[in-house]
């Protein structure tokens, strides 16, 4: 049973990774990262019957941290949107080489 949970978690995580690599929209990329975090949360929950109840507590921490990241991330994207009028990351390459 655990294998299925962990497998699902790994698949979700991979979907998130793939999304970050292929998507160009900064907000969607960020959503993919959130997906990755939640995939990890799933792992924590799935593992906690075996590894200990702390696993469920960790999920709270992860949710809180993800919320903080979301707040900051959206703020950064908005700030940048004012300059570039776009959330397409292909437009952000002032810095390179």
């Amino acid at each position, binding site marked *: 049973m655990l294998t299925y949970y962990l497998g699902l978690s790994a698949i979700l995580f991979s979907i998130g*990774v793939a999304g*970050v*690599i292929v*998507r160009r929209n900064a907000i969607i*990329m960020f959503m993919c990262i959130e997906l990755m975090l939640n995939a990890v949360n799933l792992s924590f929950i799935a593992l906690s019957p075996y590894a200990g109840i702390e696993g469920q507590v960790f999920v709270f921490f992860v949710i809180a941290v993800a919320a903080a990241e979301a707040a900051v991330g959206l703020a950064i994207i908005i700030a940048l949107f004012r300059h570039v009028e776009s959330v397409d*990351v292909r437009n*952000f*390459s*002032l810095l390179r080489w």
Partner: protein
Amino acid sequence: MGDGIVNGAAAGFSPFLLGWIVLLPLIGFLVNGAVAIAARRYKPVPLAAASEEEDVAHRHEEHPATPEPIPATPPAWTKSLPTFVAPGVIALAFAIALVNFFRMLGAGDALPVIERYWSWMPVGDLQVDVAFQLDQLSMLMTLIITGVGALIHVFSVGYMKKDEGYARYFAYLNLFVFFMLILVLGSSFPLMFVGWEGVGLCSYLLIGFWFREKANADAGKKAFIVNRIGDFGFLIAMFLIFAHLGTLNFVEVFAAAPEQLAFGGAVVTAICLFLFLGATGKSAQIPLFVWLPDAMAGPTPVSALIHAATMVTAGVYLIVRSSVLFAMAPSASLVVGLIGALTAIFAATIALKQWDIKKVLAYSTVSQLGFMFAAVGIGAYVAGVFHLMTHAFFKALLFLGAGAVIHAMHSALHATHSPRDAQDMRNMGGMRRWMPWTFGTMGVATLAIAGIPPFSGFFSKDEILGYAWSGARGELPISQGSLFGVGGEVWMLLIGVLLAAAALLTAFYMGRMMLYTFFGPNRTGEAESPHLHEVGASMKWPLVVLGVLSLIGGLFQVEADVPIVNWFAAVAIGGPDALYNFLAPVTAPAAAVMAQNIPAATVATHPAWPVLLAIVIGAGGLLLAWYLLKPAALGVEGEEPDYRRAWERILHDKWYVDEAYDRGVVRPVVALSGFFARVLDRRLIDGTVDWMGRAAQSVGMVGARVQSGHVNTYAFVLVVGAVLALFWFSGGFAWLAAS
């Protein structure tokens, strides 16, 4: 600082204010540095435009003869304070060193005294302290550094009088002396390395004193990289010593080495060769000599102090200090001797064709350093140190004298805004009329370097040649060694022949330099020559003192059992073999090692003929120059000699000889040195450096392209890395390898 723990079983000798010898120059540096920073406020932004007025006269040195009018002049104290502080601290250090010297003499065979200050590098079992070791060798070096250093400081007062960076110059000079003293007084390899690097740094600061040009900048870069190669050798040697002996303190290393390392073994040979690689970098030996002639871009007193008397001899000091190790590695010693002899002859041939007076002296220095390395390579450690000492006297004098000439030339050329080169001997000639003191003292130095008795160079050079001949007859312990399967005697014979030839060339090019500079008609120019003048007192007296030292310096070490030389035993200072006896405690362990491991070492015999030969060579070289070269026919810089006017006479005399000289000596030599310059210097060193730089850059370019600026690419790179890492951690690679 002088209250460190004295631990050394000295027989009645305790050092007197040892720490202050080192501390005083540091104080001088701090004071002068503070003055330099304070003085900056009073002057305008330094002219970057200096490179614009690129007349030839300014090519070598941005000479300070007449500064541009500046709006705000710094107050007088910014000059008067360094004037007293800078030479003052060095003179005071010299005085303290003298007190210690006489105390040491009174104490007999004192063991090394180690004054410990604080723990510097404690890493596990590597314990290095900041501690100074005072023994006969470091004593002698300290005396030379502070003594000659003080004279050069005094000379600089006059030479740099009108320079706007006066205080800064003295700050650097003091700092140099500070590091040089750490180099010779440090009681361990790492501390010596501190001084080693420090003097290098100061040398850049001082060469760069007037650096504003691209060409000079490249020279500086080359010097830096070449010295890094040398340092690399030094560091490897240190690691090897530590790995095999577990310590880096001199006393402990040299006590442990004969017991823990195999005589002539690979380890000790490797250590010695790497140490020598370090020495070639600092002391400008083949193949790392290329930086020294370029370093002549600095002010002339700097050349005298750093590039003649002190810093460049650090390599010789290193080998004498490590004489126990070198005595254990006869093959490595032969390499040292051979490289030294080759450098001596090679640099001497290049010196033959130089027109720049400082370049002549620069190559001469490289050549003389070769003599010293040849000496220490064949196991004649005292002879090497002896030549180091006499060379410090006469070469410092030559450089200072050249500085005086350039100073005079420069003010003359500047008076008429002549674009010609103040350092080119073709623009000089007949200078003895205007500069009798300079001429006289430089004449003494020339006789000394040529090896004419009773001048100092005669004694030291003769001793080296004498040892080489003894070695060739198999009478030296190192003669028992072998290199590439060839016995030590053969190599020693080669070394002796090369050195004799180098001595002949030395006398010749020195005679040539003196002739072109001081004899014949003046070629400076009608308008310019009235402006030529003798230097002032602050520059004259150091010349005189050094002249006296160049004259009598040889009497510190008069070999009692060598014919002809021992005629001077009556006037020898401190009795015959004074230096030998003084340094005996330092070289004794090396001698003991050789006596123990090479049973067949016989006592050297001293026939008279090598001494006679040396005198003939020296005198012959000078006479040859006198007869072959006719300064009267020399054209000025950039002008072909006017052969037609005095056709017959020149055809018979100058033209023919010049041509013969050109065909027989100069052309092959030029070709050879050109070959060396092109292949070794340009192609090999510059080329390698350039190529490595370009190759590295293009690889870097590829790396930089990954940095596309796109987040997606970055994420992709991260994921690739992560997949690889996971593959490894999950045992994927192991699985692949297994299947």
